[in-house]
């Protein structure tokens, strides 16, 4: 009983302590120079999607440095405004995603948000962006991130930069029907991205007249695939489509190659980076997948409008991270942040935060046309907040451990 009373006193002390700690900080002095534009950035730099989220965060830091070096961005008032990119990490946890985005919008009062890596977590942030009327550019590819499944229309405030799994599915279906395959199996990860791959690959395959005879999922942390392999073999399919990101995508490819050495394997664009090939080793040989141009730069035609942007990004990123391998996910982040920075030019200095956010949203929806980015030529519109077509991806085949262009002519 006595402990009870004592614990009350201690408890109240803790609350008071928390409160006083805050007041001790002096309120920020109002500064005279032109307002700083704030961009919110949130990715899964750690946790299960770290291999995707870390390069994204590093790209954001790189752009921050570049802008600081240039002294800021010229606003509509002709003056240079400093740009602050506030970076958070949500560890691929839906709770943290919502907390981070809420904090960015309400506490840090950013004008635009770039968030987040995973499909499931990006879907969780939709209500926060919509209700607080702030544009959120996601780096995840699942369809529900920008389109409302019931009404089929695009969420007003949601955009995304990666190519969709529909595009990836279209490429795989076109290739498989071209080489005379009729029965297909689909393997996928048991998460937001994997299930979206399954839905889109299946739709595109059936649209191209292929029959999906077997589907099977696995967990991101799985290392044993014999159950899936037994199903694939027994189903008699002639090719396997894999909808996963590394490292599990590589393990799945190895399992297929071990069980059925000459089974053709196609994958989604989620494997479009060196770690996939390194981890899969020999099993990657001969596999084909659509790929963002940034990881197969020397296969990109010189007259391609994206070429200069791609080469600049590769040079900057390699120098900034002293030689880390280029990843298509870093490219998605670059597109999102650079679009946001460009949209800042539409921000009136005196306007209220709400007006500034609306201006950025409208700029994104209307002014981003044939916009050369890393992931492709973006053309946003009221009915398409992804702005990319099938041609934003390049079909690639792994030859001697390297992704080589594999255009339709060579099929």
């Amino acid at each position: 009983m006595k402990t009870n009373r004592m614990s009350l006193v201690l408890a109240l002390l803790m609350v008071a302590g928390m409160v006083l700690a805050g007041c001790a900080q002096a309120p920020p002095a109002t500064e005279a120079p032109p307002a700083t534009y704030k961009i919110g950035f949130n990715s899964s730099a750690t946790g299960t999607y770290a291999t995707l989220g870390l390069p994204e965060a590093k790209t954001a830091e790189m752009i921050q440095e570049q802008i600081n070096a240039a002294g800021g961005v010229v606003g509509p008032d002709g003056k240079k405004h400093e740009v602050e990119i506030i970076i958070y990490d949500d560890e691929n946890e839906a709770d943290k995603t919502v907390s981070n985005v809420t904090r960015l919008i309400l506490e840090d009062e950013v004008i635009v948000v770039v968030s987040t890596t995973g499909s499931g977590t990006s879907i969780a942030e939709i209500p926060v962006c919509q209700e607080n009327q702030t544009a959120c550019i996601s780096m995840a590819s699942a369809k529900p991130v920008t389109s409302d499944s019931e009404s089929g229309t695009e969420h007003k405030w949601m955009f995304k930069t990666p190519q969709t799994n529909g595009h990836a599915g279209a490429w795989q279906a076109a290739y498989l029907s071209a080489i005379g395959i009729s029965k297909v199996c689909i393997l996928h990860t048991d998460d937001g991205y994997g299930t979206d791959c399954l839905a889109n690959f299946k739709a595109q395959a059936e649209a191209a007249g292929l029959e999906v005879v077997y589907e099977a999922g696995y967990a991101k942390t799985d290392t044993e695939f014999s159950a899936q392999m037994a199903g694939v073999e027994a189903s008699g399919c002639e090719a396997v489509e894999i909808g996963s990101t590394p490292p599990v995508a590589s393990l799945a490819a190895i399992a297929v190659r071990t069980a059925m050495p000459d089974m053709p394997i196609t994958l989604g664009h989620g494997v479009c980076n060196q770690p996939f090939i390194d981890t899969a080793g020999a099993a990657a040989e001969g596999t084909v997948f659509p790929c963002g141009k940034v990881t197969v730069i020397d296969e990109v035609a010189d007259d391609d409008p994206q070429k200069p942007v791609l080469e600049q990004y590769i040079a900057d990123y390699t120098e900034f991270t002293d030689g880390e391998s280029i990843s298509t996910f870093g490219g998605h982040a670059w597109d999102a942040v650079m679009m946001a920075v460009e949209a800042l030019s539409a921000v009136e200095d005196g306007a209220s935060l709400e007006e500034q956010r609306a201006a950025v949203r409208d700029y994104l929806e209307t002014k981003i046309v044939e916009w050369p980015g890393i992931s492709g030529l973006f053309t946003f519109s009221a009915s398409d907040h992804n702005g990319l077509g099938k041609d934003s991806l390049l079909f690639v085949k792994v030859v001697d451990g390297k992704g080589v262009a594999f255009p339709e002519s060579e099929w």
Partner: protein
Amino acid sequence: MPRIPRSKLARIAAIIVLTVAITALVIGLGSRKNLQPKHYVQLILDGFRGGSIYALMALGYVTVYTVTGIINFAQGEFVMLGALISISVYNMPLPLPPAARLVVAVGSSILLTTLIGIIVERVAIYPARLSPTVTLIIITIGVTITLRASALLIWGADPYVLPAFSTLVLEDHIFRFGGVTLQAQSLWIWGTLAVVLVLLYVFLEHTITGKALRACAVNRRAAQLVGINPSRMSMLSFGLAAALGAIGGIVMGPVTRPIYDMGLMLGLRGFVAAILGGLVSAPGAVVGGLLLGVVENIAAGVTNPTYKSVVAFVIMIGILLLRPQGIIGRGETGGEQ
């Protein structure tokens, strides 16, 4: 002829009927997916491979539980540490041929992980040995979080790989017979399990410390009375569990891509295997591990592969409720110490 009491007879009959029913169900489901016999063989073979890793971990759980009465949640992390340390040592620029480097890597990894296991026991487990079960479980969870976070900082979030032992290259030698594939590494895994069992048997049966450890397992207080120091035994049990975990991690290095957070699900599966074996007997742990690997794989093969971990946990709850002493053992129902 000794008359078998009616209840025992009934139980044997029930078990027979149950197994026949299950096999019929499995064949039925399998045929819907037109699985050929060779697929079942493949499922069983791969089940044994996975099961051997579960068995090694189950041995770790049993060693710690019998001597200290603690369920060591961090057992899965010892597997991760074993795998990642061996890979780091192997990739060190030592002036040795690959084979020698692999041996050095394996040796140093087992030593280092055992050391970590002992440090964990000295720093976190022993000081709280008299605490209630809840506190001890939370402490082992705290250890798990710390080990996993340190691994994230040291090795980052990317997967690593250890070359296959027989080819010392990424691609392993694969045996194919009658549509069934068998990786050479699987043979290394089964071989290692056999060697570990023999060494463990020799250690437990024929060395003084081994006997002391077993005495502790049977009755801690009695062991104390005859002068066995429980503190040393507790330390030894954690060291041994860490070594067993490390060995499991090393041999599965080439087959799976070790990564900093592989410990959680593996640890849970190892525990289910230990429960299957009754959590008190070493042979029980090995049989439990192999059985879990096969049953889990076949169930996944005939139903939907994503239900693999559901199957493992359904088996665990089933065993806990119906036969807490496991299929083989005669342990108690895990009451408060």
